[in-house]
């Protein structure tokens, strides 16, 4: 084995950083060299993470591949990394989308390539670090570090209003994070540790209900702005519209997941009473986000802006699943986060393909593209269907599980969610229709070249993943089973005891996926505790 268990996370985390440092040493003006080295390390970053796929031990509680070293003894901060099922899924998504994003920039970015690839790789390290950190201070540092490269990606390589969009993005997200910093300090002075594992493993009421409520809001703004939940979403359309393609892919694919990850890693398990108390508000905001995002999509004239608002709607599904607080809702939410990375990342790549050819993103400029670009049309169709939740494709699994999870708690929530799905189908298909079908009305579109090999290389992996999750999501459910159980037990210790059979028998997807014996053994273990 190339890396031992204690080294593999470091290897994944620092491969992009090493790439960035190497690029730093290559003099400017050699664009081709920077492109090659950037792509090499983008691919390497993915490659070193692949062993996790078979080395990650499914069904094990707690964190794996843990690295724990003294870092700042004066304040008790440790350098602690580790992943559980949730972060495992997100780390894999990050390394995959990171490699794809770098590859997608090959011909799109032709100015200041050195800085561009350095920043993309730094961003990669920042995001991976945030998913892996098990120490509050370390987590916060990575959480903020990733803002800086993203600012530059938007501000330097974006389109017309890029400066405005970049600083808006930075200030919005920073506004949330600084309050979280105070929350972290408050946690420290109550729990007397900066170790996330200790706080997670602590017996249920670690913080008083009163303090939980304060902490919940301190963390809420950081995460809600990142997700972004309605009404904190206004930075997103600007940032997406102005960012270069790779920036949008990373932003939608990974950065937004920071928010939902934060809810699942911090808010839910650490402040359970507060979460229950504010659950209604969270659900209402999620439902508004679903419907509002979808309605706004209908009115957009800019393709990227449309997809940006669709992110608001889709991510609101994820928060709906989270705050439903049922196993299916949570699992569905994580799967939907993965799906959103795949399909929305794919949609941004699609827009990038068109933008490179026509240098416009206006929907009215296109029409009838299926004629000159048949293969593009096919792939675009698949990604559209995956995004709107067509069965056999990934979106269906996630949305279905979320709705099923929400339905368990309150039928009205699920009903509103369904409205969102219908609207989602409407705006995505309408967009497809306006761009691809009909006659070529604009002469500039008549002889657009179809996809080239590199563009296939960026899109095909996403299409394959979409099919895989859509057809055989069992491994995903298995990976997520244990961490989701641990979350649910925080709220309802009786959940698995009261319904030892229903989660399996009443839910067809689960019945296929989770071998009953496995479920019982985990249940037995918890009962033993």
């Amino acid at each position: 084995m190339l890396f031992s268990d204690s080294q593999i996370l470091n290897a994944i985390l620092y491969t992009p950083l090493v790439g960035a440092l190497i690029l730093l040493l290559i003099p400017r003006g050699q664009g081709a060299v920077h492109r090659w080295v950037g792509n090499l390390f983008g691919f390497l970053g993915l490659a070193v993470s692949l062993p996790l796929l078979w080395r990650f031990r499914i069904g094990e509680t707690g964190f794996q591949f843990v690295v724990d070293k003294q870092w700042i003894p004066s304040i008790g901060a440790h350098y602690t990394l580790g992943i559980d099922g949730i972060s495992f899924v997100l780390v894999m998504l990050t390394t995959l989308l990171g490699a794809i994003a770098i590859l997608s920039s090959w011909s799109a970015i032709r100015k200041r390539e050195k800085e561009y690839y350095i920043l993309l790789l730094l961003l990669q390290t920042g995001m991976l670090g945030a998913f892996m950190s098990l120490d509050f201070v370390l987590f916060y540092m990575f959480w903020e570090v990733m803002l800086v490269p993203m600012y530059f990606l938007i501000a330097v390589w974006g389109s017309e209003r890029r400066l405005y969009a970049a600083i808006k993005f930075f200030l919005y997200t920073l506004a949330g994070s600084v309050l979280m910093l105070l929350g972290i300090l408050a946690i420290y002075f109550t729990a007397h540790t900066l170790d996330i594992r200790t706080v997670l493993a602590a017996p249920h009421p670690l913080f008083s209900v009163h303090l939980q409520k304060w902490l919940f809001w301190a963390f809420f703004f950081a995460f809600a702005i990142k997700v972004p939940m309605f009404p904190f979403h206004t930075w997103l359309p600007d940032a997406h519209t102005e960012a270069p393609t790779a920036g949008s892919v990373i932003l939608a694919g990974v950065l937004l997941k920071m928010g939902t990850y934060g809810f699942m890693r911090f808010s839910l398990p650490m402040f359970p009473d507060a979460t229950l108390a504010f659950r209604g508000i969270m659900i209402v905001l999620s439902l508004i986000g679903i419907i509002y995002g979808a309605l706004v999509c209908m009115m957009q004239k800019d393709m990227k802006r449309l997809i940006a608002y669709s992110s608001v709607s889709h991510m609101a599904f994820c928060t709906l699943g989270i705050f439903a607080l049922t196993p299916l809702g949570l699992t569905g939410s994580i799967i939907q986060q993965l799906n959103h990375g795949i399909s929305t990342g794919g949609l941004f790549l699609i827009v990038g393909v068109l933008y490179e050819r026509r240098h416009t993103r206006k929907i009215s400029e296109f029409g009838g593209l299926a004629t000159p670009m048949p293969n593009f049309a096919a792939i675009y169709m698949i990604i559209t269907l995956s995004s709107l939740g067509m069965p056999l494709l990934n979106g269906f699994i996630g949305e279905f599980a979320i709705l099923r999870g929400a339905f368990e708690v309150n039928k009205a929530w699920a009903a509103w969610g369904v409205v969102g799905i219908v609207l989602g189908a409407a705006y995505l298909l309408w967009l497809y229709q306006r761009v691809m079908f009909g006659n070529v009305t604009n002469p500039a579109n008549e002889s657009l070249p179809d996809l080239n090999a590199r563009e296939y290389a960026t899109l095909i992996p996403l299409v394959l993943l979409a099919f895989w999750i859509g057809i055989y999501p069992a491994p995903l459910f298995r990976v997520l089973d244990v961490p989701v159980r641990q979350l649910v037990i925080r709220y309802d210790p009786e959940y698995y005891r009261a319904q030892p059979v229903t989660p399996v028998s009443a839910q067809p997807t689960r019945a296929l996926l989770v071998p009953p014996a496995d479920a019982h053994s985990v249940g037995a273990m918890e009962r033993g505790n």
Partner: protein
Amino acid sequence: MAILLTDFLLEKEQKAWNALTALLGVFFSGVALWKLRGVPQGGVSGFDNSIVVDPFFVFFGFIFLAATALVILLSVKYLEIEDEHHGEYYALMLFSAVGMMFLAEGNDLVVLFLALETMAIAFYVLSGFLRRDRRSNEGALKYLLLGAFSSGVLAYGFSLLYGMAGSTNLDTIADAVAVRPPRDFLLLLSLATVAAGLFFKIAAVPFHQWAPDVYEGAPTPIAAYISVASKAASFALLLRIFLTIYWPVRVDWVGVVSVVAVASMTLGNLAAITQTNLKRLLAYSSIGHVGYILLGLVAGNTRGLQGMAFYILTYAFFNAGAFAVITVLRRKDIIGDELDDLNGLIERNPAAAVLMLIFVLSLAGIPPTAGFIGKLLIFWALIETNHYILAVIAVLYILPAVYYYFRIIAHMWVREPGDVSRPHISPGQVVALATAMAVTLAAGIYPEPFLRFASYSLMLPFGR
């Protein structure tokens, strides 16, 4: 003991004719300081207990020397361009450095006052060193007039203290103050006057008006020197006085200091937003930083004082670094201190742009830089002492700060270069910039050694 002191005194008599001798002086002084590192926590006093050499002094002495060395390295080329290359410049710098040293080790009101004036008078001259520049003259005059006034107020406060204790020795005064009745009028009056004088020196609101003009007018290396070394020295004096004499009456000044801190953060951060001159912008931002540092005193616990020390130490490096980049931009015919002069710096001199980025991120308090750790410690102390509202105000003021700091970045990285000339970095500047960057990043990524150094300096009033 005496030998070491002579070493400091010698510097000014060297009348250094060039930067090298000056650097040499700083180096020897540094060696002497290094030998002092083992002094006991209580310190060793000398000269009839009028000075005391303790870890507190060693810590601040190190900051002064580092800042002096950095500024000397920056000055050589700058003075050549300005055509004002005179030996007195370095002599004055060292002269003020001696003043700072005594400020940090003085244990007697007379010594402290003389040290303060030694430092300040050298600065009055230095800030007006560009004789042919009107801004320089204006700044210097303002600095002199307001400075003299504030010194007068401070002297009045000192005289009140002498009146209460019948001695100028800090220890004696501390004992005398401790037995005064609560809410004693004389004591409060002395507190108000001393605090006003000190707040002027550190440029805290409402005694800050001189700072932007002086920074803008002074030669850029001197602006850097004022903003880091003079500020550190004034903080040393402030800490020495507040932690010894006024510690027993802490309840009387905590409120005032927190108001001053919040006002400084407010004014500094909001006024900086509209500035178009880089040096004025940094001047206002430094007022904001003073607010953050003062919050450590408001918290007043070990972590807060450690945070202050860490903040002052690292601020010396990253703020000097930012000024160093502006110095690099000074070329024949180009002043280089307007925001527009930064336009497209990434194309013209990538190294300078990247360095400036690091310093600016640190000033804004974004990890992984020293500025973040400094702010973290301050917030830490505030939460620890239950100053929640202050903590929330303090973190929220990061936002306007980020806004104007990122204007600098946007000018460097996004705007098209207006002029095509490529600023060149001289070897001296390379050393200064590299040192500043190394400290900024090291203290941000692995702050432990710096934190130890800061804790080592702590003068704990609680034990007295």
